[in-house]
C-alpha cells in the first residue's frame, strides 16, 4: 500500500479558523489531503460567521464516534453523561448540519447478548434527541464482532451502504462484523461494483470504523484486507476516508487518499506506539473531557474536490 510516511501519525490541529489560514499554510495543509483545520467552539463560531459554511450549495456534516455506551471505568467518571453532552453540543450549533454520521463503537462490548441489545436501545434513545434527524450509523467491533452484527442490524439496519448528498458519493464500509477485522470478498465485490458506477473524478467520501491502512497493527489498528479496499479506491481521484476506532485525531495519506480519524466520546487513547500498552489516557480532573469531542466536516466547493474543513468541537466545555 502506498503509505506516505511523511504524514503518518501526526496531529495537525490548529487553533486558527480557516479564515485565518494564509495561502502558504493552506498549501502545506493541502498536502495532508486537502484538510483545513480549526478547533474549539470559538473556531466554529468564527467559521460560521465567516460565511464559509453558509455559502450557497455548501453543506457540512458532523462526525461522532466511539461513544462506547455501557462502559464504566475511572478513565471517564461521566461515562453516562458524555454522550448526552455530545448531543447537546451538536444541537447547540448555530447552524445545523445536513446530516450526522456515527463511525462505530456506539456501545461498549458485552459478552451478554441481552445486555448488548439494552445498550444499543439506550444509545438509540439518547441520540434520538439530536435535532438533525438524518443520522447515518455504522457498527464498531464492540457493537458487532461477537454476533456478526446481528443485534446491531436489529436496531440500525445494514452495516454497509451508500448514499449521495449534494454531489458527494458516500460509502459506508463494514470492517468490524467479521471478528477477524476483514471487509470480506463479498463486500469488496459490492464496493468494486459501486465504484464502477462512479466516474473517475467523482467526489467520494468513505466512512468506516477501523483504519483501512496499517496504522499500528501492534494495537490492532488495522483492517486485515483494508489494502484491497484502498486498491479499489485508488483509480478515483477525489477520495477521502473518515473513520474512528483509535479515539484520537490522526491524519494519514495512502497515495492521494486522505484518512482522518475522529476523537471518541468516552476516553482518549495514546498516540500510536507512544507507550507500551494501548491503555486509555487517564481522566484529568483539572481538564475534564480533554481529548474527547466531535467534529464538523465541510466539503469545500468544486473544484476543490479533495478539500475539507474540519472543525474540532470540545464536548462538555462551556460554549464561548
Amino acid at each position, binding site marked *: 500500500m502506498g503509505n506516505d510516511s511523511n504524514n503518518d501519525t501526526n496531529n495537525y490541529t490548529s487553533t486558527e479558523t480557516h479564515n485565518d489560514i494564509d495561502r502558504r499554510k493552506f498549501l502545506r495543509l493541502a498536502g495532508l489531503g486537502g484538510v483545513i483545520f480549526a478547533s474549539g467552539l470559538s473556531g466554529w463560531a468564527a467559521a460560521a460567521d465567516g460565511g464559509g459554511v453558509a455559502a450557497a450549495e455548501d453543506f457540512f456534516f458532523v462526525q461522532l464516534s466511539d461513544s462506547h455506551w455501557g462502559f464504566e471505568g475511572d478513565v471517564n467518571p461521566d461515562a453516562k453523561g458524555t454522550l448526552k453532552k455530545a448531543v447537546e453540543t451538536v444541537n447547540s450549533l448555530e447552524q445545523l448540519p445536513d446530516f450526522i454520521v456515527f463511525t462505530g463503537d456506539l456501545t461498549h462490548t458485552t459478552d451478554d447478548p441481552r445486555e448488548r441489545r439494552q445498550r444499543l436501545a439506550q444509545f438509540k434513545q439518547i441520540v434520538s434527541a439530536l435535532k438533525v434527524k438524518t443520522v447515518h450509523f455504522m457498527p464498531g467491533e464492540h457493537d458487532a464482532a461477537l454476533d456478526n452484527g446481528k443485534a446491531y442490524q436489529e436496531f440500525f439496519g445494514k452495516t454497509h451502504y451508500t448514499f449521495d448528498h449534494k454531489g458527494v458519493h458516500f460509502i459506508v464500509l463494514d470492517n468490524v462484523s467479521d471478528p477477524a*477485522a476483514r471487509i470480506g470478498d463479498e463486500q469488496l465485490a459490492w464496493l468494486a461494483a459501486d465504484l464502477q458506477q462512479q466516474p473517475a473524478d467523482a467526489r467520494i467520501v468513505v466512512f468506516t470504523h477501523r483504519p483501512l491502512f496499517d496504522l499500528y497493527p501492534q494495537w490492532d489498528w488495522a483492517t486485515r484486507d483494508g489494502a484491497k479496499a484502498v486498491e479499489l479506491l485508488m483509480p478515483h481521484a477525489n477520495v477521502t476516508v473518515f473513520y474512528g476506532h483509535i479515539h484520537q485525531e490522526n491524519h494519514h495519506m495512502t497515495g492521494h487518499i486522505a484518512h482522518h480519524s475522529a476523537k471518541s466520546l468516552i476516553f482518549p487513547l495514546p498516540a500510536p506506539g507512544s507507550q507500551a500498552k494501548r491503555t486509555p489516557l487517564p481522566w484529568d480532573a483539572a481538564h475534564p473531557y480533554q481529548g474527547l469531542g466531535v467534529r464538523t466536516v465541510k466539503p469545500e466547493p468544486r473544484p476543490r474536490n479533495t478539500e475539507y474543513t474540519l472543525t474540532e468541537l470540545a464536548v462538555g466545555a462551556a460554549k464561548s
Partner: protein
Amino acid sequence: MSVNKIDKKRRLLLAACTAGGLGAMAIAVAQPKERVIKVTAKRFDFSPNVIPLKKGVPVTLALTSLDIPMGFNAPDFGVRADMLPGKVAKLRFIPDKTGEFTFYCDIFCGSGHESMSGSLVVT
C-alpha cells in the same frame, strides 16, 4: 588401468566422500536447533504470554485455543495464524531482530479481547 591405480582412485574418492560427509556434519552441528513452543489461548489470555526467542534461530509455535476461536498475530515479524479449539496450527518463523515485540489476539473474542496480548522477547 592397473588394479593398484583403481584402488588408489577409490581411496581418493572415499577420502573425498568422508571429508564431504564430515563437512556436512559440521554444517548440521553449526545450524541452531529448531525450537517448538506450545502456546495456548483462552478468554482472555495467552499461555505463555512472554515467549523468549533467539535471533536467527527458527521457531515453530504450536498454537491452539482452549475455548473459542482466537488469533495469534506478531506484526513485527509479519506472521499470524488462527488458534482454533481442537486443532494445532504450526507457525514457523525466524526472529530477525532483537528486542521485545507485541503479539496479540486479532480475532475479537469478547469483553477482555483488547487486553489479550503478550511479548516475544528476542535476544
